């Protein structure tokens, strides 16, 4: 069963376009639930994109990235059939990763 | 556990099974809704005006009934003492922008809003306005006479005095807004300093 990241990696000339959708609430810690209690901060802090296990993009996020985050990045040097992975780690230490092959 | 209004229960028990669809309406309402927070099942009961205005589009209402309802609406209007119509436009702007009040998710202690922007254009710099009602931009230029003030107060208090089955809430007659809030809205509409009456360059 796949993880909760959806990835598409497509070649456009010599550039590989990666689009990823992640399943995460991205709670800021500033919202309250209906009962008036604060909803704890819960957000992705770190996201890495790799191409054949080499990092092409690394990012740090704050809680201002929207829920169920979308990320689009582009890199050169990809070939059809290569592996692209997207990994995240959130502020609770939970992680997820997804992978696809370049089309 | 559902709290139902006695009136609806009574109608429902009278309806029983196998009756026509019209009889099943109160039964469906009584079994489908439940009281929550400060919102009780009495909200589902209609007054004669609401019942008259619940006809599907295209169905004409009885004209005698319509004029009776119009007269009743006109008679319901309470004008402010000394015809002192104009309050504070800045507070009126808050009332016009506030869409809360009387929903079960709202704080019953907080003031209700008029939610004017949901349906009307007012301040020309506010882009997020609805169009269910006519634009009221530059309203003050329509005139500042006593007649105009009384007409506008009446529209806010009970719109059905001029237009039976208008979509607009009866802000005064049903106590959605206080007299002071209505005066503040009047100022928002009429005061030459109100943003409603500023022209956009």
């Amino acid at each position: 069963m796949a993880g909760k990241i959806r990835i598409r990696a497509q070649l456009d000339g010599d550039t590989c376009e990666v689009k990823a959708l992640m399943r995460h609430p991205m709670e800021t810690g500033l919202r309250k639930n209906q009962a008036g209690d604060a909803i704890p901060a819960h957000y992705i802090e770190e996201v890495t994109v790799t191409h054949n296990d080499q990092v092409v993009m690394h990012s740090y996020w704050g809680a201002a990235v929207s829920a169920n985050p979308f990320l689009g990045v582009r890199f050169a040097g990809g070939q059809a059939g290569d592996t692209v992975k997207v990994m995240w780690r959130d502020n609770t230490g939970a992680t997820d990763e997804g992978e696809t092959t370049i089309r | 556990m559902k709290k139902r209004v006695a009136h609806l229960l009574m109608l429902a028990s009278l309806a029983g099974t196998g009756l026509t669809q019209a009889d099943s309406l109160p039964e469906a309402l009584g079994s489908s809704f439940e009281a929550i927070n400060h919102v009780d099942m009495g909200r589902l009961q209609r007054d004669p005006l609401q019942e008259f205005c619940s006809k599907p589009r295209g169905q004409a209402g009885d004209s005698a009934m319509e004029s009776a309802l119009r007269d009743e609406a006109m008679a319901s209007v309470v004008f402010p003492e000394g015809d002192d119509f104009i309050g504070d436009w800045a507070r009126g702007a808050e009332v016009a922008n506030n869409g809360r009040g009387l929903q079960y998710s709202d704080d019953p202690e907080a003031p209700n809003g008029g939610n004017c922007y949901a349906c009307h254009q007012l301040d020309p710099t506010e882009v997020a306005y609805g169009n269910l009602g006519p634009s009221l931009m530059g309203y003050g230029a329509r005139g500042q006479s006593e007649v105009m003030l009384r007409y506008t107060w009446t529209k806010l208090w009970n719109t059905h005095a001029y237009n039976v089955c208008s979509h607009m809430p009866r802000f005064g007659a049903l106590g959605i807004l206080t007299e002071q809030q209505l005066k503040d809205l009047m100022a928002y509409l009429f005061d030459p300093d109100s943003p409603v009456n500023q022209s956009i360059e």
Partner: protein
Amino acid sequence: MGLMESIRNTRWLSALFGLLIAAAPSSGEDAGIFDEYRAMFGDDNPAIFVIDEGEEYWLEPQGPKNTSLEDCDLGLGPGVVEGAYARLPRYFADVDKVMDVEARLIFCMGELQGRPSAEIEGYPYSMRGDLGTEIEALVAWLADQSSGMPIAPGQEHVKEREFFTLGEQLFYYRAGPHDFSCATCHGQQDKRIRLQSLPDLTSHEGAAASYSAWPAYRISEGIVRTMGWRMRDCFRQQRFPLLGVGSDVTVALQTYLAVTAAGAPMMAPGLKR
């Protein structure tokens, strides 16, 4: 299970990058000022996660009977899910009632899994901070199983026709401290509240654009909302009391809408404000 996996993979790919293009944000409703904003969303819809979760719930043994919902009859026979959503609401002889998808799911959870209906009815829709409920996930998956199929609610049985009439009456039912009915906001063309476009649900085009796109991923909330939730929340804004999940009023209104929208293809889960 290998076949299952490959079907699943094909489906999400086509859904994520193909079919859902048709269900761009607030599909069919006048966009105007938000065209640029909506265009930037492209073709991705996070509902795809929820669809998968719905299938997992469907297959997962639960409740005192430790049974899955795989034998649930949504109107086309036990376990038949493809196209079932598009045929709802409909009359079910086993309960002698017209039901929508939520009422039927809760019935199946009781019958097949032995779960008390109060458990589901008390918390059918996500609250703030939730990632989704079981009902929302199941409905998203079931709607996806009807994607592209024409809306065709039952209208053969007398009770189905009665519910259409009841739904029409409810649509125009003005009550509460603001005198609102459904028709107050949804009875005319090209209207909006603030900047939010209001579909004219009395017209086929308006009803079709709206009905076909629910359930929908709501970008404002980050979750999938169902048509049952849409009804409940409209009534909250109408200043009415709390509308029960799967209740006669919600089923009747959905029947009125679905019949008005009949023939248009389902395009849910959609993407909404």
